[in-house]
């Protein structure tokens, strides 16, 4: 099996799913000291990329 790692397939700016617009007001939120400074290292994919990647994986 020569399937690349999911991180190697990642393309910046891609989204596989977008949440519906929030229907409640924006809250004050957490204090800055409680928030992370840089984005989490998570892959970015279109829906089709994800389906293909995980389908090629015999599970």
């Amino acid at each position, binding site marked *: 099996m020569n399937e690349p790692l*999911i991180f190697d397939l990642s393309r910046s700016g891609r989204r*596989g799913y977008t*949440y519906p617009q929030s229907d409640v007001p*924006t*809250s004050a939120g957490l204090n800055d000291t409680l928030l992370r400074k840089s*984005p989490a290292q998570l892959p970015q994919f279109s829906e089709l990329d994800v389906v293909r990647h995980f389908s090629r994986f015999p599970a």
Partner: protein
Amino acid sequence: VDSYGKRAFVLTLQAREQHIKRERATSNICSNQALAALTSTIHVSLIGWEGMREAALQSQDKAAYLLNGLKDLIRRSNLLGQMPFWCEFPLRFASVESMETFLAALKSEGIFGGVRLGPLTKQDGDERIVLVAVTEKRTKEELDRYIAVARRVLA
């Protein structure tokens, strides 16, 4: 035949559920932690870090909206201390009975009101605290229903 006299089939000479095995499969995933890990990996791949951020912010906003709707009720019944929170907050009740009445009223409306903290922490005083969590999946309409039921029970 089974104990009811109905015709039944068994899996013979199969150590595990090999009939669900896909071609080329190297292992089976049944209802175990590996399946949970796989589904969350797929979920995170779909939403990416921007989606993760969006889900976190929406959860936070919706939890704040619910707490805000309960605020006057809570203060009146002398319930809650104000600490920073993200999407979960505690509701402290005057008694275990009032807490159970509250949860039962929500349940009868098809709402899961929250988790009883007592059995989890076994701390004194926690037996009349409910931990309420709100995620991005809840809608304003659902939160308004929660508030309406709470208003009816606690007012």
